[in-house]
């Protein structure tokens, strides 16, 4: 089986600035991977390249051996760090939108999660609070039976209660054949959930190791290692 994600010499330039430079990386299936780095380190650029939202300057990214395209988008379920839903739509309409476009969208599952969260599916999105909208988006993304989940800052702006729910949701929906790539700068909260962490700095991969490897070798948490590596 081909690795779920493979980056080969991936480079992205904006003007004269390298957002990513010559990044190579292979991720196997069945793990939860933390993509860690400071703001502006290239996390979101990498994620956008995997999703085909931007085009690379050099190098390539392969998902299950394929370049980003219609076929890889069937496999990847992506939660951006912004709201990408049309505000005028009702939750119900968004559910049918997802059912229409994604064969692997499990609408029963999505409805169950929405009702757990007391979200009225007949409400228009614009009438919901920012936090609720984020939850709707997470529910949609996690209700797909995808092979690669890419979650960009899923716990960035939410309150602690919602954060716990989100983390639980991710763990509950995680299956052994899928890989979850999760970008964040709040490591402590998620450290126990991760198999592996990637440290990315100035567009380059500076560390790729499992959490327990780091703890065994360095006798410290990923969080404190992160603080060391990214010391200002």
């Amino acid at each position, binding site marked *: 089986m081909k690795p779920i994600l493979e980056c080969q010499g991936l480079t992205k330039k904006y003007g004269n600035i390298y957002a990513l430079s010559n990044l190579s990386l292979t991720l196997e299936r069945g793990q939860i991977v933390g993509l860690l780095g400071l703001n502006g380190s290239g996390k979101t650029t990498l994620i956008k390249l995997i999703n085909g*939202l931007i085009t690379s300057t050099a190098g390539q990214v392969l998902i299950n051996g394929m370049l980003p395209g219609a076929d890889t988008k069937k496999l*990847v379920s*992506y939660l951006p760090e912004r709201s990408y839903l049309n505000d005028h739509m009702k939750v119900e309409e968004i559910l049918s939108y997802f059912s229409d476009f994604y064969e692997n969208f499990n609408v029963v599952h999505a409805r169950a999660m929405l009702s757990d969260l007391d979200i009225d599916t007949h409400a228009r999105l614009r009438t919901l609070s920012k936090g609720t909208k984020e939850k709707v988006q997470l529910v949609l993304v996690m209700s797909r039976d995808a092979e690669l989940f890419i979650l960009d800052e899923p716990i960035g702006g939410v309150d602690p209660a919602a954060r716990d729910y989100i983390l639980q949701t991710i763990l509950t929906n995680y299956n052994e054949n899928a890989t979850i790539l999760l970008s964040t700068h709040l490591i402590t909260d998620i450290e126990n959930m991760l198999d592996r962490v990637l440290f990315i700095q100035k567009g380059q991969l500076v560390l790729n190791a499992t959490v327990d490897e780091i703890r065994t070798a360095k006798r410290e948490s990923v969080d404190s290692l992160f603080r060391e590596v990214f010391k200002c």
Partner: protein
Amino acid sequence: MLGKLLKYDLKYGSRFFILLHGILLAACILGRLLFFERLDFDAGSDIIAPYIILATSLYVLLFTAVSLGTAALLAVRFYRNLFTDEGYLSWTLPATPVEQLWAKLFSGTIWYILDILILALSLVILLSGSNLTAAYAKVAPEITEALGMPLGRYGTMLLVFTLLSSFSGTVTIYVCISIGQLFPSHRVLCAILTYFITSAVIQIVVLGLMVIFNLFPGPYINDAATETDTVQYLFTTLKLSGVINFVLTIVEYFATRYIFIRKLNLT
């Protein structure tokens, strides 16, 4: 996939489209009942002329507004759905860039065609009152002679030509917005600039071609122009601009396609 994309594109704008054209139709029905049907063409032309001029100007304004509204609907849908935050969802649907483009082209052309048909219909509603047709009947032979054909045929030809151009109109809007997104910090401004620059360039090219093909209506060339020649001239230029439009549409389509496939850069 194309069908699904198209369905949501059409659904999105339908409310605005119906509202816009509903207002137009209502205004035309009212205009006919309250104004045009009450006109007395036997009265002296100096009495009714000011009213007709005023009403005509108002309706020209209304028609222009509705056309612009439709163009804005296409532009906003295209821009919002593909190049703003919503683009993060649109571009992660399992559709190819070419499918995305054709969904937008079809939906845009459909809106355009409906718009033109409704505009034509409202014109008919506005001007088909019995007093107007009677008044027209008196001058019909003159007009037919001037146009070289009956007014009805002339109108139909113009309608067909406009319908044919609906696709190219759609592509033009899209290519401008797509080129605009190549300049991340000034997307909208660059889209508008692209529109004006390409229109200016096209005007110059058309002018140049007209001179080359000896079509320029200057006093030296068309000294002996008669009225039928004028119509002839009109149709030749229509054909010429049709050809230019056709070539242009193909260029614009491939430019948009290229940007979709190679130059997509959502911020």
